[in-house]
């Protein structure tokens, strides 16, 4: 049964849609938080309300049919900023229902390769941001970082920073997607919260000192005889530089 499916944008919401669709063995025209208007001219959008009980039933089946690695890929693709991400997941799951755990290795299959590639992009970006986050010490006793990643990588990097900076309060703010992670020092856990797109932190005097030190250190490190700006730009794209102290 083809059609256009609308859900609330949560992972449980998407799993609810999948739990409904998979038994029918068809790929819909579109799945989205707000599917394109034009398609609804020809077929009506079907709203799928998130059903936690259905998800609970569906989850064990999902784990049984997929390897942990594949499940992780699906999560990565879910966090991708890509219009057809839900369809990619849907096509992939259909194949998994048909072929079983073997899909884990069918890397060249047309229903697998695009998902794999997108997941890899998200994974790479998440890894890069383990390094590209720059905290600033803010009055009020916490560390603030603004980033603007292409994909919604915050849930993928949160636990890394929570383990590493467990003795300081910190916030990582994704200005592209209007959300952020807040780490609570007392409870020792992090939360993903919606945040305003712009914020101007009030920096401590110490902060300015360390930023200057870092900038001067960074400039000193370069060996002039080996200058290779093209290589540098490949590694640190221009779009991330506004958020990096050393390029400020």
């Amino acid at each position, binding site marked *: 049964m083809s059609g256009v499916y609308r859900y609330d944008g949560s992972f449980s919401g998407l799993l609810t849609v999948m739990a409904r669709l998979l038994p029918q063995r068809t790929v819909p025209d579109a799945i989205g938080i707000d599917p394109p208007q034009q398609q609804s001219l020809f077929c009506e959008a079907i709203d799928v309300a998130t059903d936690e009980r259905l998800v609970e039933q569906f989850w064990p089946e999902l784990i049984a049919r997929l390897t942990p690695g594949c499940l992780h890929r699906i999560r990565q693709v879910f966090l991708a900023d890509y219009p057809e991400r839900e369809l990619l997941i849907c096509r992939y799951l259909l194949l998994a229902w048909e072929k079983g755990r*073997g899909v884990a*290795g*069918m*890397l*060249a*299959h047309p229903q697998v*390769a695009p998902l794999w*590639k997108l997941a890899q992009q998200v994974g790479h970006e998440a*890894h890069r941001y*383990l*390094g*590209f*986050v*720059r*905290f*600033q*010490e803010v009055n009020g006793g916490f*560390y603030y*970082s603004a980033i603007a990643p292409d994909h919604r990588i915050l849930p993928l990097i949160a636990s*890394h*920073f929570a*383990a*590493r*900076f*467990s*003795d*300081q309060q910190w916030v990582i703010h994704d200005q592209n997607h209007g959300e952020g992670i807040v780490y609570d020092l007392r409870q020792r856990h992090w939360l993903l919260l919606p945040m305003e797109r712009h914020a101007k932190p009030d920096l401590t005097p*110490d902060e300015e*000192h*360390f930023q*200057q*030190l*870092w900038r*001067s*250190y*960074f400039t*000193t*490190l*370069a*060996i*002039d*005889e*080996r*200058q*290779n*700006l*093209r*290589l*540098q730009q490949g*590694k*640190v794209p221009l779009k991330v530089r506004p958020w*990096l*102290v*050393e390029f400020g």
Partner: protein
Amino acid sequence: MAVATEMMDKLKILAEGAKYDVSCSSSGSFRRNKDGIGNAASCGICHTWTSDGRCVSLLKVLMTNSCIFDCAYCVNRRSNDVQRVLLTPAEVAELTIGFYRRNYIEGLFLSTGVVRSPDYTMELLIEAVRTLREQYRFNGYIHLKLVPGADPLLVQQAGLLADRVSVNLELPTREGLALLAPDKSRDAVIGPMRQVNSLITINRAERKESRKVARFAPAGQSTQLIVGATKETDRQIVTLSEQLYQRMELKRVYYSAFIPVVADTRLPALPNSPLRREHRLYQADWLLRYYGFSAQELLDEERPNLETDLDPKTGWALRHLELFPVEINGADYEVLLRIPGIGVRSAQRIVRARRQGHLSMDDLAKLGVVLKRARYFITARGRYAGECAIDSTLLRSRLLETPAKKGAAQLELPFSRPQASDEAISLISGEL
């Protein structure tokens, strides 16, 4: 504010002195954060890249640039007239934590000039690291340089506090070392290296008995060679590296193309392409560590140097065309690894994907395998896509066609500023 600028000056001078140490990795350690700050990521994380394209993951700094040694290639040598400064252990620790909290760095790389005696210097380094580990409860990555000639007890302490330790060989041969670094002896370098290796082996055995035993240098040890300052061939260098990997179980050997930072009559004139040579040596090094090649296969007495215009794996393949083409659906993993253009990731993906069915050329492209070079050396489902006969000279010219342009541009970069290199050459060759 005066304190701030003083710190700025010191950091500049001491970073300047440490930047020629090329070791940059922050990988291989599993140290976990226990109620303090920081942990070590086993995959290593680069935090930024400098304008020469090298990654920055560690605060790489000298404790002091004063030195009682007089090595010809070194900026900090005794006879060089530069400003001498010193960071106290407390200052090193404070700086590291300040940078780390802001996520500028993945950890600390601490090296130093030798002051007073090797033991005294080593004690300074150890105190800085101990402050970090004990006072700040820092569990991030620390790479500590061992001072040649330091007491074995100090070497042991260093390994218990750091994630990786290293002592630089600097020059590939004993003769080279005697010529350019008369105060350093080969034995003073090899001694600690051998000690660290045996301590790591003992520690590994002890940890099998009890997990409570503290790790000793969990990320192993590395070393560095300066290439091109003396007359060693690539064969000598690659063979030395192979021995270091096999006998000393080193994690990494770094190669640093010699760039004259100080003029000295003992130093050679600048060779044509030191960076290209450095690049080829790294490629050969990778083949030793991850691709199952031996030094003997890559270089022999008749060809003691790596080719500049072809990577070492392609060069090897062209000398062994009787082994090609390889059928991608049947070959063992070890054989796949020997195909030019196919790396560890591609080989793993091929092995994984072909369990689900025979792969065609198109499938390979979908897996992300780059076929630019590989297609001349493989068949997929029996089909060959190289569009030319497998013939050594023919293939060589084809493989050289594309990369030549890009490589040349990249190579010229460092020397496209005539004032810098010409000056250096005339300075040195004039005296020679």
